[in-house]
């Protein structure tokens, strides 16, 4: 029988072939896996973006000026729309805390003062 001589280089090449084959397989699997992950992520981002769009639309829908006006009229009874006379030109025109008694009559609306005094009584 002829001696079957295996050259070292053949073994090495075979080893390399197997190694590169399995590496190729591993890489291609990894790529597919990452691509899937990326697709899922893209989908999640898109669905989040869609969610943000819906929420922004809802926010602006709930902040419609006519709705805010109706709500303010209903719940902020102590406050009323600012008339030009209510605006002061500079911050210096606002009375100091010490002179509250005199200043308050001009700045605080009448209803608010009544409420405040009621609160004082209950205390």
């Amino acid at each position, binding site marked *: 029988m002829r001696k079957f001589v295996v050259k070292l280089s053949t073994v090495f090449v075979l080893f390399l072939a197997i190694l590169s084959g399995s590496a190729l397989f591993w890489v291609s699997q990894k790529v597919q896996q990452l691509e899937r992950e990326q697709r899922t992520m893209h989908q999640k981002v898109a669905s989040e973006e*869609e969610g943000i769009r819906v929420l922004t639309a809802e926010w602006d829908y709930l902040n419609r000026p006519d709705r805010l006006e109706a709500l303010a009229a209903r719940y902020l009874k102590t406050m009323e729309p600012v008339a030009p006379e209510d*605006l002061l030109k500079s911050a210096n025109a606002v009375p100091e805390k010490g002179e509250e008694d005199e200043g308050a009559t001009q700045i605080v609306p009448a209803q608010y003062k009544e409420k405040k005094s009621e609160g004082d009584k209950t205390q």
Partner: protein
Amino acid sequence: MSRKSPFARLTIRIMGEKSGNLDLVRGRLVLLATLFVVFYAGVMVRLVDVTLIQGLIDDSDSYIGAPQADNEEEQSKFRADIVDRNGVLLATSLKTASLHADPKIIVDPVETAKGLSKIFPDVSYGETLKKLQSDKRFVWIKRNLTPDEQKKILELGDPGLVFDYDYQRFYPQGALTAHMVGYDNIDGKGLAGIERSFDHLLRQSKDPMKLTLDVRLQHILRREIKKAISDFTAKAGAGVIMDVNTGEILAATSLPDFNPHAPSADPKDPEMFNRVTLGVYELGSTFKIFTTAALLEQKKTPFTKKYDTSEPVKIAGYTIHDFHGEKRPLTIPEVFMVSSNIGTVHMAQEIGTDGLKRFYTDLGLMKKPEFEIDEVGSPIIPSPWREVNTLTASYGHGIAVTPLQLVTATSTIVNGGLKVTPHLVKQDEDPISRTRIVSKETSLKMRQLMRLVVSSGTARKADVEGYMIGGKTGTAEKNIHGRYSRDQRVATFVGAFPIDDPKYAILVMVDEPHPNKSSYGYATAGWVAVPAVGRIVSAAGSLLGMKPETDMVDISEPLKQFVSAKIGEH
């Protein structure tokens, strides 16, 4: 050869022949075995791939209700957002689910139909059952579901119910900006307003489109005009707030308006008509602003010059009267203040037909203005233009323009004299014009005259303390089928504030107002449009960041010397 060394020869021969065959056979066997090994290895690898690797990842993205990958049809129905100048959404595209069914796959049509009619009150049980039991493979159940409805349908759990995802246009502000923003149809095609004129851009772009409107001002304007319409049982109304320097429209409303989610199918319905940009009206005495400006600019006539208003002007079969006749010679400020038609006609005679026509053309009153939406009306100009047309046009009769043109021309007069073009789409740089129409001096004089009208003339009800308003009223009889009607009028106020250095122009127009008790039987602009302007400016002033100036000198003060004390008694 075999006899010499038969064994060797035989061996050689046999060895030779057999080894050849054997090698061949063995080679084939090895090849076959290798092929099988490779094949089975391939199958093995593929098995691992499919069952372990892909199988594990797969179940993360196959649940029901996940947004489907964008296909081309969905792409084409997406439209870019439209926002106001502060970024508040005016129109947006939202992905909504629509429900259809495949009757072949429906497991239990009776139960499903019951469940569906429970979720949607407007879907009847009988009809749905009929649909679900039909032989078709595709029946629509309901379009554009809310997320809540979608959840309930998923809970029904019938495999024959299928969702379709698509973009639908949504207008968070509702009717507030309907005439300017417009609306689109079920296929995502813009049919009016910005939606129509920028249809192509909105389909392609992803970035929001910014308009010059401010929803807060828009709301104030709409609220007050609505109030004026209901107070005076009027037919319709319109209003504009414009930046006098850039021509940006901060608010524009046309009432009645419509719900852009359910626009009327008939384009002739009154609520579908854009009165700001498409409607043309004879706007009456507000045109005296332009006639007086033309006189001051072209003839440099001093304020002291008097015009005799004692006799009505008769020309070519027409007689021009005054509403409140002073019946004496009036100075220019007096003519403007009491809004004398006769005095203005005399001014027009002094200016001449060519001069007046040229001036109106410069102001953009004679031709269709360029604007960013398609619904723009062409003015109605007398043709041929005779001398009598010059005289009537001087006080706004026989010439019909859109309210947008009126407020634009007024902006040009008061801003220092630079030509203004109206804008609805926000530009990166403020569009300041360099074309001069009237001199700074004329502009100042006109502002003084307009202030005089508010401080002591026909528009006293717009005198808001702190924000100096100036303007001009106009009450015009409507031309119905060629005849002027005494009862059907258009009441207009156009002006600017603060008048000493104008920033904003404002227009309020009320169509066919009727007198009420509080107006003592009057339905003129001074009673109808002017109080609304006062309310709008006092509400909008603080929003616009304007400080009320209470100790300012009234710029109409110097004109008081030209005004006789007798005026204002009626």
